């Protein structure tokens, strides 16, 4: 059965290691914070200038000067630091963030990603997404495998304007965990109960399937 949004987040969380600095995008990536394994320490980076983002505040502790990149009021954890946008993107561009998790409209087998603009619809801007995909060695994209009409978003070549070229290596959808290498998607794991054939059917890109593909543990 296809994973729920929370199950996708759970699977992503398994990729986190103790002591990681992590930037989580809006949507499913945000949920990952709820599934960090017990006893594991992670510091969340928010690109508007906070390392060590905490949970939402209470009515008593809410502070308009303390927001996250989604403009939500948040708190800071013990050992946090505040800094400018230039410093924040020095961290990101300089490759100091251990893991970035973000959503996408499309990903292709060259590792390119489209996530910020649909021509004909209102353009709101790329925010920090282009810097994040250019700066991180270690990026996980979370997305749905196909749109509601069954049209694949796992493509040979992205059709929408790119956020970044040749930068994505790992993608987790409601059906599959895939790695991009040598110009193709490689199927690593499938959602529990989902068959390789079902994944293949919804994948427009070249999909390499080697040996038995294990089920995800979520």
């Amino acid at each position, binding site marked *: 059965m296809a994973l729920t949004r929370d199950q996708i987040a759970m699977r992503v969380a398994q990729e986190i290691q103790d002591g990681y600095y992590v930037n989580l995008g809006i949507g499913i990536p945000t949920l990952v914070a709820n599934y960090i394994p017990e006893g594991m320490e992670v510091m969340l980076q928010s690109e508007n200038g906070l390392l060590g983002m905490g949970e939402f505040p209470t009515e008593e502790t809410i502070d*308009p000067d303390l*927001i996250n990149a989604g*403009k939500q009021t948040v708190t800071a954890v013990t050992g946090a630091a505040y800094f*400018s946008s230039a410093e924040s993107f020095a961290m990101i*561009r300089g490759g100091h963030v251990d893991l970035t998790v973000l959503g996408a409209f499309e990903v292709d087998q060259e590792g390119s990603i489209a996530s910020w603009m649909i021509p004909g619809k209102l353009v709101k801007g790329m925010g920090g997404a282009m*810097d994040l995909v250019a700066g991180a060695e270690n990026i996980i994209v979370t997305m749905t495998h196909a749109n509601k009409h069954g049209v694949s978003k796992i493509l040979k070549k992205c059709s929408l304007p790119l956020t970044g070229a040749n930068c994505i290596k790992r993608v987790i959808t409601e059906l599959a965990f895939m790695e991009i290498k040598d110009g193709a998607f490689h199927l690593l794991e499938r959602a529990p109960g989902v068959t390789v054939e079902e994944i293949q059917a919804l994948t427009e890109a070249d999909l390499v399937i080697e040996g038995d593909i294990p089920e995800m543990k979520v």
Partner: protein
Amino acid sequence: MSGFNKVVTSYEEALAGFTDNMTVMVGGFGLCGIPEGLIEQVNKLGATGLTAISNNAGVDGFGLGKWLEKRQISTMIGSYVGENELFEKLLLSGEMEVILTPQGTLAEKIRAGGAGIPAFFTATGYGTQVADGKETREIEGRNYVLEPSLTADFALVKAWKADTMGNLIFRKTAMNFNPMMATAGKITVVEVEEIVEAGDLDPNYIHTPGIYVQRIIKGSFEKRIEQRTIKPTNEQA
């Protein structure tokens, strides 16, 4: 003003010399850390044909949203301009040009402008629309885009505290773009919550040294919240 006392007491004085067709930087991320009174004063002055450099464009009726209402901006340079219906209208009608710039590149372009760096290479945006018409180059196996720096006639900055000499400290994530913009304005005007005497701020923890600042004014701030998110308490749950 004499010596290093940069305090002004009226918004008229704070924005003296501000005219049509100027380039103006405005600090803030969303509505967090924006110089509310200075934005208001530009709105009151009615200057038009402005090139506005700001990460966001405010919301309808607040922040830079007010400049949009009065059609004061002819070119907007920012990374994320959503959350504003009027913005869409001006964009689609062609009344306003919009130059979308990745957030980190925007921050670095402003820092570079203040620091006398006319251009730098970054991997951000390579292979995307952002690189259209720009020089690109492979350096040690990776592709980069050449980005020119940004400066402005006026930088409108919001800080937490200033001393009379213009040394600034910011508070939490209200810092954001403000420190870089303070360095990149020909005239940098800073609106603060509190003005203290020189010597009252610890010289070891100054975020922006006074050399970058021309004028300081004490403001009062609404600090509107865009996304009020609260943790469910036990009583509420």
